[in-house]
């Protein structure tokens, strides 16, 4: 049988970066094909070429044995190719229905088809067990549901070749499981699926074959059945990966952060946080596990000074944090930082970096006041040196301080942010989803950094949806659901099933 997709000697260059170099491999009809590789290995670029988003500088592309010159997404869609992008391609202020219809409206007047398509979508949702209401607006939906909308879109368009670029990065275990159910259904129907992920056990769980990329080239394709995690990891990174990182024995010090009776009610009068109380001591990592959207983000925002709570007391080393009596949180994060609270936010592109600044200019975001002590003068020489140090320490690639940070891969951006926050010598560091979309090599090094900080006596609050990550790092685990803390476990009590139950415990859906 003809392969569904065949890449022949594909090359693509962005300025100085060779994103793909002479990439050749093929994907069998009706299979699930995994593509893995470090951040920046060129996976997304290759898929974007297949989907017509970029055009290759050289090489050939064969779809079902036919050479194709795909010039844009429209032509890709015409060839039955569908893609779920790393960042969702949805129009936030439109409904699910309109998003699905977009590009395939079936006529000039929408109204005629809206009813019909809506019914169709409801049918699909039922058939594939996708819980989506076609009339909801995207901006009101959680990421998990948005992901389902993307899938829904592809089913509606009856794509035969489906590309999924890190679809599970933001999903919970349950959501991932149900996504895989859908993918298996797809495969049964003879569709071809290309899956990019950084999570190796997903590759092992669902793919038939896997291609490994490194620095723009293919370093090997293997049958999934004939491989294992360690081998794949080594192929990817070029060295063995440590899964069990060393850590000092648990010996927490004085209480650093104490939260009592924290409540948050938003402008729509929805209660987002209910009576949250906990404490963190020096030298321990407290992890908050939970399905995203259950109040963890808001908790981080409040603790970092980006948002004001409605009620409750927070004290840092015995002293109340200075948010009382304020009308808004404008400028408050600076005060919190001075008190020794560092923050690695969940959404790094939105909050943690200024995309159009260079890496160097981002390397002191939040600490600008400290640097410009005399008359606000910024000493770029010192800043540059400091930045170069950070880049070297955290092995950021490329280690070019003058590069626009948007051009770094997600993993490397995360390293810059982490480096910056750790360099501030905080008493408490708040870390949200530190390894989202980050490759395993980088995960290993970021985890090692966090553990080193813990060992050095820093209090760490980790928010993560990855149970694997929670297990690897936490000394204590709090589980959040519906704005409440529904349970607490010690590290040695770690039990995925129990945590899963607690996560769903008070959850409404």
């Amino acid at each position: 049988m003809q392969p569904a997709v065949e890449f022949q000697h594909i090359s693509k260059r962005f300025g100085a970066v060779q994103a793909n170099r002479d990439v050749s491999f093929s994907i069998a009809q009706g299979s699930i094909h995994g593509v893995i590789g470090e951040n920046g290995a060129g996976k997304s670029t290759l898929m974007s070429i297949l989907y017509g988003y970029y055009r290759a500088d050289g090489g050939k592309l064969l779809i079902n044995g036919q050479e194709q010159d795909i010039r844009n997404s429209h032509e890709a869609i015409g060839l039955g190719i569908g893609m779920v992008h790393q960042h969702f391609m949805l129009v936030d202020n439109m409904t699910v229905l309109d998003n699905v219809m977009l590009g395939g409206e079936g006529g000039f007047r929408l109204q005629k088809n809206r009813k019909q398509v809506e019914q169709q979508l409801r049918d699909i949702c039922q058939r594939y067990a996708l819980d989506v209401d076609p009339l909801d607006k995207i901006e009101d939906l959680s990421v998990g549901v948005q992901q389902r909308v993307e899938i829904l879109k592809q089913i509606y368009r009856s794509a035969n070749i489906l590309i999924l670029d890190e679809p599970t990065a933001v999903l919970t275990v349950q959501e991932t499981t149900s996504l895989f159910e859908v993918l298996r259904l797809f495969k049964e129907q003879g569709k071809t699926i290309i899956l990019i992920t950084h999570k190796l056990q997903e590759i092992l769980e669902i793919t038939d074959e896997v291609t490994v990329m490194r620095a723009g080239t293919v370093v090997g394709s293997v049958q999934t059945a004939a491989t294992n995690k360690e081998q794949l990891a080594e192929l990817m990174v070029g060295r063995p990966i440590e899964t069990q990182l060393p850590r000092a024995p648990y010996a927490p010090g004085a209480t650093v952060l104490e939260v009592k009776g924290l409540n948050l009610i938003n402008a729509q009068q929805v209660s987002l946080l209910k009576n949250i109380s906990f404490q963190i001591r020096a030298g321990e990592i407290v992890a908050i596990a939970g399905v995203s959207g259950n109040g963890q983000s808001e908790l981080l925002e409040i603790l970092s000074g980006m948002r004001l709570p409605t009620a409750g007391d927070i004290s840092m080393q015995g002293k109340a944090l200075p948010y009382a009596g304020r009308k808004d949180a404008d400028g408050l994060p600076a005060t919190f930082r001075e008190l020794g609270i560092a923050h690695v936010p969940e959404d790094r592109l939105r909050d943690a970096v200024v995309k159009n600044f260079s890496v160097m200019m981002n390397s002191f975001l939040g600490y600008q006041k400290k640097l410009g002590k005399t008359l606000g003068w910024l000493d770029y020489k010192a800043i540059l040196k400091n930045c170069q140090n950070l880049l070297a320490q955290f092995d950021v690639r490329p280690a070019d301080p003058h590069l626009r940070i948007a051009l770094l891969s997600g993993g490397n951006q995360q390293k810059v942010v982490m480096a910056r926050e750790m360099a501030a010598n905080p008493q408490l560091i708040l870390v949200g989803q530190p390894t989202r979309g980050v490759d395993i090599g980088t995960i290993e090094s970021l985890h090692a950094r966090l553990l080193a900080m813990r060992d050095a006596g820093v209090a760490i609050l980790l928010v993560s949806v990855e149970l694997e990550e929670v297990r690897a790092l936490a000394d204590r685990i709090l589980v959040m659901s519906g704005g409440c803390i529904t349970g607490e476990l010690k590290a040695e009590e770690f039990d995925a099933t129990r945590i899963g139950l607690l996560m769903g415990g008070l959850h409404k859906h």
Partner: protein
Amino acid sequence: MNQTDLPRWATAFALPLLNLLSALLVAAGVIYLLGESPVESLGILLNSAVFNPEGLGYTLFYAATFIFTGLSVSIAMQAGLFNIGSEGQMYIGGLGLTLVVLTLDASLPGWALIPLAMLGSAAFGAAWAFLPGYLQAKRGSHVVVTTIMFNFIAASLMNYLIVSFLIPAGEQNTASRVFAASAWLPKLNGILPVLGETPLNISFILALLALVIYGIAVWRTTWGYQLRATGLNQHAAHYAGISISKTIIVTMMISGALAGLAAVNSVMGSTHYLNLNFPAGAGFIGIAIALMGRQHPVGILLSAILFGALIQGGFDLSLEKPNIPPETFIFIQGLIILFCGAMENLYAPALSALLKRKSS
């Protein structure tokens, strides 16, 4: 296609030059259609705006005003604010300095009066920009809309104040009385007699100084860093502990103060009285200058001089060539802004292809 393929000299000089030439080419076509020789016209224009010292003096005189309004628009843009209100802020700034001068010009010597009057213009300009800034920061009212409205309001207010209070009784001219000589800005032809009778005065020097301060403040200080961070990503700025509303309000006030200072050149440096509609669109030209100069001090300086030259040279040209009405130069200004400010990459593909062919 990619601009980054090109060497720096090409993007910094060759492309802008090619664009300027294209604009002039179109302009030459229009001049030809109007029945005049483009080459001769260009000669007259260059001569009267650049080569003849007195003309150059006028060019720089106009440029001084444009530098201030250009800076006013630029600094707001750095914070992501599109201040269309420089015109009104300049107008009100003129009122500020006039009030100072009219009260004190009989009693104070120039060295005290002039700085005080400048303070007045900056303060009034800043005050006029405060409300749009405040409303944007605290109420989310779009600063573009409020500043446009404030331009109209300023025009009405000034019309009322000038006509009802400032015109000396029995006078026809819609202007305040003439200031005492102590309020006249020292002219540069005192130092450089070659400039002849031009109103070019110390405010040009001040404008250059303002450019330097602007450059340092925006790129070299914490404050400028916070300003730019706010302009590029408000979420990140908030995360970084920058007070967004304070930044917006302060920036708008500085922007207003700079616009207010633009009044100093024409009111205290040339006419020596406050007249109706004296800004004559300088605030709007400031927008073009900020955009064309990419909010960079050197860019602002060059565009301001270019506009000054067009006004001076165009005026002289229309004097010599009755077939070419002065409005032709408004058209040419527009063309230049279009080509140099918005189509900077027009020739990039061709140039990069040419360079590639050369190098291979």
